[in-house]
């Protein structure tokens, strides 16, 4: 009997076009919109490019070999190239700046000057390079005036290869993963899709309770044991939801190229745990909240959207802000737990945080199932 109920429930859910739209098509459309709008903004696309800068070819510049040498060194091709230099007259320099072809204009003089159109990181780097030039001049003047006897050795050192410029920094990484904020949106989208599995749970709750639908009344008088019906319904809802989440995952990973790391088994486990949480949440709303179908559907949509918002679907920083300001909320919001499980798989080498997320998802699902069970068991109706 279990398989009979399961198969027919499966057919009922698949044929509900509205349900399939919200649980699958809507997520795919939203994912596509995300991709179209900011999919190209990867960490790779924000990579530093040598800064295009115009230098005014005036008399002061031609008589300043030190500045020429610094700019030449910084613009020589190679891995450390910082500048892409254009030596032009002042009129042309201004035209280039106005067109946005260069980030700034360097004009030599007693103190080199920088002209820009707007503030920004590239303009700040240009300023820092010129600052370095004038600050080093000041340092050398100070040292020579204090200890004239070291001037010979000092100048020799400055003129030697690399001179006084050293790189004191060494890049390390906590993991191999590249921080990429855009990924957070796709993880939150998958979390939303998992929570939308609640629609399947809600549909089940309507179709099993005699006071909510005609179908529920008919099924309540059937000789099949209610436990078998509930289990078969839930299994069918879970099968549909999990398949839909997998289709979305496949679309994001293979069509849009979203990076979920390479731990496929754990990624699938997250999808499954998320679907279970979604279905049990929908069942909980359907059984425990009093009200019409519209009220319950509205409540499910509203709460799912609020959870997804806190998981970073509309504004990615939200998830981090919640983690900083109200960390307890992270552990009770299933959408954040799903999004964070994907995130921890991608970014961390260890699985501690991942299993905390999955564990909490299981606990939340168990609580929702338990509450729904209490509400559904031994239900009798005086009149319907």
């Amino acid at each position, binding site marked *: 009997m279990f398989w009979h109920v399961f198969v027919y429930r499966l057919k009922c859910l698949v044929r509900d076009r509205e349900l399939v739209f919200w649980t699958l098509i809507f997520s795919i459309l939203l994912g596509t919109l995300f991709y179209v709008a900011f999919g190209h*903004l990867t960490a790779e696309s924000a990579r530093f490019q040598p800064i295009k800068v115009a230098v005014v070819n005036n008399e002061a510049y031609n008589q300043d070999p030190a500045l020429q040498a610094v700019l030449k060194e910084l613009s020589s091709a190679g891995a450390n190239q910082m500048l892409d230099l254009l030596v032009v007259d002042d009129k042309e320099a201004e035209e280039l700046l106005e067109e946005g072809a260069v980030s700034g204009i360097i004009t030599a003089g007693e103190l080199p*000057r920088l002209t820009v*159109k707007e*503030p920004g990181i590239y303009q700040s780097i240009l300023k820092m390079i010129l600052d370095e030039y004038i600050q*080093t001049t000041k340092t050398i003047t100070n040292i020579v005036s204090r200890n004239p006897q070291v001037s010979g050795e000092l100048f020799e050192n400055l003129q030697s290869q690399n001179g006084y410029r*050293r790189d*004191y*920094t060494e*890049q390390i990484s906590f993991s191999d993963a590249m921080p990429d904020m855009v990924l957070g949106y796709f993880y939150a989208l998958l979390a939303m899709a998992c929570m939308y599995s609640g629609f399947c749970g809600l549909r089940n709750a309507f179709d099993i309770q005699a006071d909510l639908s005609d179908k529920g009344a008919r099924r309540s008088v059937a000789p099949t044991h209610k436990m078998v019906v509930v289990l078969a319904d839930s299994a069918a809802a879970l099968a549909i939801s999990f398949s839909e989440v997998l289709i979305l995952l496949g679309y994001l990973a293979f069509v849009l190229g979203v990076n979920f790391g390479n731990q496929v088994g754990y990624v699938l486990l997250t999808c499954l745990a998320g679907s279970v949480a979604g279905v049990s949440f929908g069942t909980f709303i359907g059984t425990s909240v009093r009200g019409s179908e519209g009220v319950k559907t509205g409540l499910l949509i509203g709460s799912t959207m609020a959870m997804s918002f806190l998981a970073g679907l*509309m504004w990615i920083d939200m998830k981090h802000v919640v983690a900083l300001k109200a960390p307890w909320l992270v552990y009770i919001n299933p959408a954040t737990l799903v999004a964070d499980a994907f995130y921890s798989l991608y970014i961390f080498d260890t699985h501690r945080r991942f299993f905390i997320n999955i564990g909490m998802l299981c606990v939340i699902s168990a609580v929702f199932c338990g509450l729904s069970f209490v509400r559904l068991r031994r239900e009798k109706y005086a009149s319907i």
Partner: protein
Amino acid sequence: MQVFKAYFKVMRGAVATLSINLCVFLALAVLFSFIAPQVQPVGFEPSRIPVAIINRDKEGEVSQGLAEYMEKVCKVIECPDDPEKLQDALFHGQVKYVAIIPPGFSDAFLSGEDCVIQKVIVPGSAEGYYVDIIINRFLDTLDLYRMYGGVGEEDSLPRLIASAMEDLAVETPVTIIGETVISEEYRPGYYYYFLYCAYALLALITMGVSTIMISFNEPDLYMRNSCSPLSKRRMNRQLAAGHTTFALGCWAVLMIGSLVMHGRNLSETGVLGLYSLNTLAFTFVCAAIGLVIGAFVRSTSAQSGVVNVVALGLCFLGGVFVPQSIMSESVLAVSKFLPSYWFVKANDAIAVLRNSNPEHLHSIHNSILIQVGFAIAIFSVALFFSKEREA
């Protein structure tokens, strides 16, 4: 006036959905007006990169000096020395650079041994290069003083650090040419309010107008109305009056909201008129889209799906949720065929408008007129389909 009255009776049924949309918008508007940075600094201000400094050489004077210098030129964010928390902060962009000063750094530096500051960054990022220069700048200068300026008793370490700090305070003069450009990070709160108005107007008006049209297009009701003594022309006139009243009502509510939240700033900058005009033009576009949805869609369940897809689609592709400046060229080329693109373009131009520059005003008016053109075109499509249905 029967039709006009019936219009608002039907509308009452959709009040719950419309209120949810309005509340979501108002909540977002309040949130973003809090988040929006207030005033753009006058003149050139170098970027202040958010940096986490993990100083494991707390006693070292060089480390302390470096941390002190970085506090002056970067935005130092307090973070615990916990890789998980640091990675969270880096992934979410709360910090762009994590600088770890290892234990014994100062001693190694002073004795001339090889010593390094460990950094965790997004590889190859411009911010990474910038903070590298800042760190190297301080240590290179201090190293010059250590090697050549520290002869004699009086040159104690604090004095060398003070000399380095003094030298590093000298700055290059920077001039900004042309009109002041208001960078994206300094857009005022009301800019975001009017930007998100596009979503609110789309969700509210298309939902409301299409709800009415679906009810009036229901086959039985449609046939019953067709044989009523009220002429088709008069009925349509009353429906049009209903749509106009409803759309203008939504627009007025949002305008009042803008005055309540940002009234003072708006009156100071004098751009309320232009914003009102831009949102009004978009209001007509939304009403026309609502008519088309009402003509195509038969059931209320399909309606909410279509309204959501159209509203989110137009907002994402037009640049409401993601700034046009960071969208790719190919997407922007397609977006130009959407009314939301021109709404956002005008909205962006109004935010940076200064002294009513005629050239800028002209481009704003153009964008608004293009939206009116879209409204007329979409309205014609709706008319065409309703005529088809009659035939």
